[in-house]
């Protein structure tokens, strides 16, 4: 039980049904859809949404614009690849290891969390470029531009997940766990503190909050989550190249969050679906992909940052209003405030 019965909670009542429906659909999908390619794309969407949710925590909750998440995504991917191939560790350990190594690497960013706004953004971008250069140049470790090949599939307790359907469940499962985790912290002391430092850092300091420490915590969490996603990615596509982890990847992740709606977890997932899914399902768009996304980014900034999540919520509210008006109401419904 939390102390945060905010107006949004009323929304959650309705979206609880939507969420349940979505979850049910995701579980049932592999049985309905025989095309393994489609499942593969959904896996990629799930993986991307994990990184996007991490950025959402940074940007939407604590207000820190980071355009360097691809660095931790890459660190996680290569770490997991190394742990499974060179050290022969089982997949679950490699997954965890990837997250931990990425989180530790993010401690290098702790001094940067002192910065704010665009300065922070540029510093994270610089960091991401440095990591990319290391990945590209240290061939003995990463295979450099030749790539890292022959990464084994994910395997649980010795059972190799050969069918894309099984890895689909793993990827979507991890994404669901990350989502639930972030939802849980919203109404907690930690969640309140993080939102406070976004809304007004000075007021937060006046309440005794250690702003830089909290900002750093968010960075570490986001990095851990990106590392997990990197590991899942490595074992899904089983081949890594430095070009997968350039600053363009970081910007793609930002696009996912912005398109989906800054501040909305579900938006991060929607944004990931659009950014990853659209090019796969609309092959023609291929070359023009980034052009379109750039334009959408500008348009979203011009016309309201609620993004897809806001559009869905408004639609949902209108639909809900319509439904309420059409259904007869029981007598004496009273919304208690506290």
């Amino acid at each position: 039980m939390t102390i945060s019965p905010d107006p949004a909670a009323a929304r959650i009542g309705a979206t609880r049904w939507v969420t349940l429906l979505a979850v049910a659909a995701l579980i049932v999908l592999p049985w309905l859809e025989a095309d393994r390619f489609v499942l593969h794309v959904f896996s990629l969407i799930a993986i991307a949404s994990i990184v996007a949710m991490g950025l959402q925590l940074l940007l939407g909750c604590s207000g820190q614009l980071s355009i360097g998440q691809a660095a931790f995504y890459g660190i996680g991917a290569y770490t997991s690849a190394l742990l499974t191939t060179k050290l022969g560790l089982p997949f679950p350990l490699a997954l965890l290891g990837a997250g931990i190594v990425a989180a530790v690497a993010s401690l290098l960013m702790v001094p940067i969390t002192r910065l704010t706004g665009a300065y922070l953004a540029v510093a994270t971008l610089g960091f991401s470029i440095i990591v990319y250069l290391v990945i590209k140049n240290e061939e003995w470790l990463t295979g450099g531009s030749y790539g890292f090949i022959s990464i084994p599939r994910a395997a649980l307790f010795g059972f190799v997940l050969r069918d894309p359907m099984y890895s689909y469940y793993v990827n979507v499962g991890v994404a669901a766990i990350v989502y639930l985790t972030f939802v849980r912290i919203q109404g907690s002391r930690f969640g309140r503190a993080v939102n406070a430092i976004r809304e007004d850092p000075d007021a937060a300091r006046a309440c005794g909050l250690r702003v830089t420490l909290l900002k750093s915590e968010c960075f570490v969490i986001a990095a851990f989550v990106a590392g997990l996603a990197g590991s899942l990615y490595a074992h899904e596509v089983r081949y890594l190249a430095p070009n997968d982890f350039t600053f363009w990847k970081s910007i793609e992740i930002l696009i996912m969050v912005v398109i989906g709606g800054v501040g909305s977890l579900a938006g991060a997932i929607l944004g990931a679906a659009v950014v990853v899914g659209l090019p796969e399902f609309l092959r023609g768009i291929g070359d023009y992909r980034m052009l379109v996304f750039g334009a959408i980014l500008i348009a979203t900034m011009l016309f309201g940052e609620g993004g897809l999540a806001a559009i869905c919520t408004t639609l949902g509210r209108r639909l809900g209003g319509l439904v309420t008006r059409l259904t007869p109401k029981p007598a004496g419904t009273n919304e208690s405030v506290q």
Partner: protein
Amino acid sequence: MGSLGASQFVDLLVGGIAVGCVYSLVALGFAMIMRATSIIHFAQGELMMLGAMCGLTSLWLLPVLPLILVVAVGMVSSGIIAVMMELFVYRTLRRRRVPIMNIITATVGMSILCINAARIIWGSEPLRFPELFATTAYEFGGVRISPQLFWIMVMAVAIMGGLQLFLKLTRSGIAMQAVAQDPEAAQLMGANLTRMMAYTFAISGMMAGAAGIMLGSMFFAFFEMGFITGLKAFVAATLGGLGSIAGAMLGGILFGLIETFSTVFLSSAYKDAIGMILLIAILLVLPSGLVGLWQRRR
């Protein structure tokens, strides 16, 4: 590695200053826009790239075009594009009183738009500039300088000097400075805010366009050249002191020298990393840049 011969030193020095001039021009744009609008214009590097591309295209169409005109084409096209960015997107965002982070995100979007538009129009292969300069080296008292680097430095200094004259001596220039310091007061004094903002972007674009031609002729032009160079120019502007015009010029040259001389000690694969590390170091240790340091000493 090892000790530097005298001529090698001169080569590095000249090369460093020349590329530094390029950084200075782009950094100037950052500084001017920052002063006027408080935003970091992520698409600044793309203005440089588009200037290079347009200049190159003009050379394809008219191979006999003299250097001055090529530079002019670059400057004018980038200037126009910059003004369009301002009038159609940035001004609307400011009018809506959108939070600053959103405007900056929009400039990121603009950058992506420009890069990909350029890739579609001009392709993804690096494009060489035809020979614009004489090939035999100039000699100044025993020191040999390539004409290309020489003229680039001369042009850059001329442009920056012209900018300073414009800002200090003309009505528009003075009005622009006033708007940068206090938009409301400037408006009360009769300055047309919209026009001044447009001028600011136009000039920043023109600087970047000139830089694009110079950089393109030194190396080559390709659709992504603006991104990393823009980032480095931002480092240079921050090094000098963000928001300071003198700082941008100083920071650019200094950064060019640092980057060029560091290739002596470091593998060229990590050359770009120098800039990034320097950036993070400056932001953490000396955020107000060298100019800020100088002002504090007074």
